[in-house]
């Protein structure tokens, strides 16, 4: 039932596992080697960039949460003010109606 705050994970490199018996570790080694020669530097760069973006988003979400609480508190105060104004508005309308009725009676008499 609990609602967990989303945790943004740090990105990781792919580990190239292989389930093939006997030669599996060799295949895995060759893939890692090729990956290390051709793509690692670019992937690392992207991972770092994405981690930074995720961190910024996380910080931003925290700020938004704090802001939402401030807004929520302001909302409570506004709701109270509106409720008070609503009471006064109804009061004034009733008073106006009463005055109109009294005027009408006075005019009639």
């Amino acid at each position, binding site marked *: 039932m*609990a609602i967990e705050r989303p945790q943004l994970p740090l990105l990781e490199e792919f580990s190239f596992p292989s389930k093939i018996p006997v030669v599996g570790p060799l295949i895995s080694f060759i893939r890692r080697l090729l990956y290390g020669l051709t793509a690692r530097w670019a992937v690392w760069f992207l991972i770092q960039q994405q981690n930074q973006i995720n961190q910024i988003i996380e910080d931003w979400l925290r700020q938004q949460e704090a802001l939402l609480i401030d807004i*929520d508190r302001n909302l409570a105060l506004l*709701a*109270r003010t509106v409720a*008070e104004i*609503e009471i006064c508005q109804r*009061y*004034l309308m009733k008073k106006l109606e009463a*005055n109109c009725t009294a005027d009408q009676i006075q005019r009639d008499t």
Partner: protein
Amino acid sequence: MSAIKRLSIAFISPLNPLRSGISDYAELLLLFLSEFFDLTLYSDCGVPANPLIAERFPVYPVLDLYKYHSLHDLRLYQIGNSPHHRNAFTVLRTLPGVVVLHEPFLHHGLYYSSPLHYRRELFYELGTPDWARLRDMEQALVNDDRQALMDVPLIGRIVDSSLGILVHSQTARRIVEAYRAKSALGRSGFPKIMVVSQPMAVLDSGEMPEHRARLGLPQDALIFGMAGFIHPVKEPYLALQAFARLQSDFPQALFLFVGEVLQETGDLLAFARELGLADKVIILGRVEPLERLHQAMSACDVVLNLRRTTIGETSAIALRAMALGKPIIVRNIGWFGELPDEACVKIGPEDGVEELVAVMRALASSPEMRLRLGQEARRYIERECDPRRVARQYAEFLWDVYLSIVQSRV
């Protein structure tokens, strides 16, 4: 102010058939309150089970208040710690009014209404999105560790936005005032807070032999009772331990549970068997309607109403027992501690079996003491809880809130 003779009040509350102490409370109060106000009821009860209520008052679902709120001069919310108030919690956010806070502690009510709203209210009160605290609170809720939850009662929004707050004890008032004092949003002395007694009419206890015969209970037995929802917080196990110690002196004594034994309470009968009390403990289960509950309580000689932790609540069951003229045993804690000493027997907040046995023995051996306590209890109910008097206090408070708002703005 001559323009306004009578206020139109939106009365938001659970009503029977919703099973809640507040439903019974509201139904008792409504008939007297209607002498002072034009009442429109907002309740998610469907058709009220009480025909008197169904005939006399217009009843709408709580969410209809969004449509009709402008037709009323004031809104009066009955709020307690249960999910029966789910829609009231929602409406309160945008349409605040005067709130009757039956307990200044809303964790269970909010959480079991909606975990999302629970989180919102917790963060509101903490003033910061503290997720670690949320997890701790949820854990405490699951374990029903009320003590761990007490320092954040989750009444923040209600205190900040309400136009007035009614509570039923000085203990509750202190909790509300403590929040109000530390709230950065509050205006000094606002909202107004008033303590009003819980309404309870003096009840005709009838003839004890008749009630016992109807329940198949022996006429000569000395009967200790515990009534209402049987929850661990009412310490039924402690009561049974103490009761077991009385057996040698009072072999004719019985222990009667008059109410639903909640799942978290466990197997009371198994515990009674362990204590060798298998034929001395009777569980009646939930007893309905109220008249039958009163009859079953009337069959008891003494009613125990203990609390290990209190959340500032009053106990309608304790008041019912007093209204029936029954001596009650309570702990000197929260609202129970505010009951007059001459109208009940109190044990200390931390007292254990020994102290409970001592007061049970004293009551068991003295019919005069039981009679005197019962009479004083009834006098207390007559004096403090008369529904007509309570309705008048309500009326004075609501007019006070209304007029002070109008005078400050018009």
